[in-house]
């Protein structure tokens, strides 16, 4: 897997801004430091970023550049030290812990590198978790989860346990879990890192499809454009072509950003599809 160089053409463009529809995410001067004194690590240094609804944004950059910290702050599971981190118009820092929890229930879906499926729950029970957290009755939750699982091609594995599934299947379960509650924001942390080329391709297809589905069920204002905001943290250059925009980070700062139309012209970057085609030949 190759990483695009910092001066790669697909990474050229204006910093952190988008000209698309209503904003899902707005970061202004977001900073985060871990530790104190000489051992302090400045994970984020004044990040400005805007992501509209319906956009699939990829955060790329070397290990330790702050991608995961940034996505943690965006999803409301970590506080920033300074700046504004607004998601659908509310700054996480102005909310109490309970308010944040409720907002995460309603707005955010998660896909993790290591899937994080609960091993003692069946597939359908795992997918139902976000709905159960919201207080949906188990029978209703299972009905909706069954639909989500069918959409990711696992309609026949409801009663399997995660350990009985392949990595790709587990990640598809995780995606079903992320979208079952129709969240308006999905954050994905290295969703293809633990998968081979073919499975990575499948997973990104599903995530991409999820980003195009209507995410307006949960309180989106009337007339808002369809589609969820999806933020993907990745090192994997073979999935870049799924992005509407790629944001590169380095040393806690946003370095470059590139929009979809430039990506369209940058097809020479190897993709999973290319890998798969190569293997087929």
């Amino acid at each position, binding site marked *: 897997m190759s990483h695009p160089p910092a001066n790669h053409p697909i990474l050229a463009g204006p910093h952190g801004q988008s000209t698309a529809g209503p904003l899902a995410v707005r970061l202004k001067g977001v900073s985060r430091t871990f530790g104190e004194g000489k051992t302090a690590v400045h994970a984020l240094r004044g990040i400005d970023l805007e992501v509209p609804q319906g956009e699939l944004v990829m955060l790329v950059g070397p290990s330790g550049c702050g991608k995961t910290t940034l996505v943690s702050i965006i999803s409301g599971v970590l506080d920033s030290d300074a700046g504004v981190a607004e998601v659908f118009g509310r700054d996480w820092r102005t909310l109490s812990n309970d308010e944040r929890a409720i907002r995460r229930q309603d707005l955010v879906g998660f896909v993790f590198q290591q899937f994080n499926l609960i091993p003692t*729950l069946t597939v359908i029970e795992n997918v139902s978790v976000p709905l159960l957290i919201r207080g949906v009755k188990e029978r209703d939750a299972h009905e909706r989860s069954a639909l989500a699982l069918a959409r990711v091609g696992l309609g026949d594995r409801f009663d399997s346990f995660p350990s009985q599934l392949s990595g790709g299947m587990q990640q598809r379960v995780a995606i079903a879990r992320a979208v079952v509650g129709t969240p308006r924001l999905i954050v994905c942390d290295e969703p293809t890192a633990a998968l081979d080329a073919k499975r990575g391709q499948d997973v990104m297809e599903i995530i991409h499809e999820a980003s195009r589905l209507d995410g307006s069920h949960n309180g989106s204002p009337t007339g808002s454009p369809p589609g969820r905001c999806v933020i993907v943290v990745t090192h994997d250059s073979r999935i870049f072509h799924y992005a509407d925009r790629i944001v590169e980070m380095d040393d806690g700062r946003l370095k470059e950003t590139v929009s979809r139309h430039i990506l369209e012209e940058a097809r020479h970057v190897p993709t999973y599809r290319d890998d798969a085609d190569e293997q087929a030949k």
Partner: protein
Amino acid sequence: MNLIALRMLMRDRGKYVALVAGLAFATLLLAQQGSIFLGLLIRATGPLQNVAQPDLWVTDPFTRYVLEFRPMSDRDLQRVRAVPGVAWAEPFFSSRTPVELPDGSFKTAQLIGIPRSTLIGQPPVITQGRIEDLRAPDAVFVDESSRPRLADVQIGQTLKLNDRRAIVVGFCRVKLGFESNAVIYTTYDNAIRFTPVGRENIPFILVKAQDGLDPKELAAQITERTGLGAFTRKEMRDRTIDFILGETGIGINFGITVLLGFVVGLAVVTAIFYQFTLENLRYFAVLKAMGTRSRTLVRMVLLQAVVVGFIGFGIGIGGVGAFSLLGRQPGAELTPYFPWQLLLLALVAILLCIFLGSLLSLRKVIALEPGIVFK
């Protein structure tokens, strides 16, 4: 979320079984040892329970136990009888005596002597023979459960008590005492012949108060006029229990075992439950990231703890119940006594156990940062 908590708990079979087994074992130790301890205390009062007729037991003021006494004289008996309000007062003998068996070995028996004329203090249940036959020369009644100890003695056979001849004329059923000795009934006169205790030979005087007179009031009168101790059956029972607790080591020994049960239960629960929580911490963080509130996670952990607590407690108590049934066999050496108070106490101890055991886990879950899901 409760269902999720229970599935996380019960589908992790190894830890679930270990938790339940640990708590069941702790419950068994606590409740079974507690019931045996109470059973022993109750058993120590067996000789008192066998005597239903009198209102008061009169004895030396320092006597605390049926088999540990300082005898009184015939004059004391007359003085007690002379106290106003006494309906009747009869001597009651109780002492240990060796019984020689046909094979030349011997057993120690508890010899009870009751007055020949009134038979006050007679055994509560006669199973074979007539109690009146006790008035025959050298006659004795033997407790049914004591027969195996006395070479399965039969009616008409002779026993040697302290080298004196005694003829078995019947069998009775009585509650045994603390020492589990065979129990033999005879007349008071025979008893002091079989077991001479010196010039003064009345261990106890059984007293009945006249109708309408408060036994406690009469007891005070007797003490005032004779200088002897006069105790109701309840007071005598309490003195017996005090004696057993104070003069023997069983209180400390059983206390240590019960404490050990609690500590074992606590250690097992804390270690396994904490390990269980640690292994699930990542999933708790996932739940938290998805919007589960901390108090919901606390509720889930407590639910898991309480469920294993109750299941372990139930299994443990079931074990104690089975043990208690075995102990109900006549003549059984262990006679567990299991009042509801002990059940409640064991439940409280187990709940305390799981509460303390889950504290560490709760601390971990409350302090859990949902951000670890991305690490």
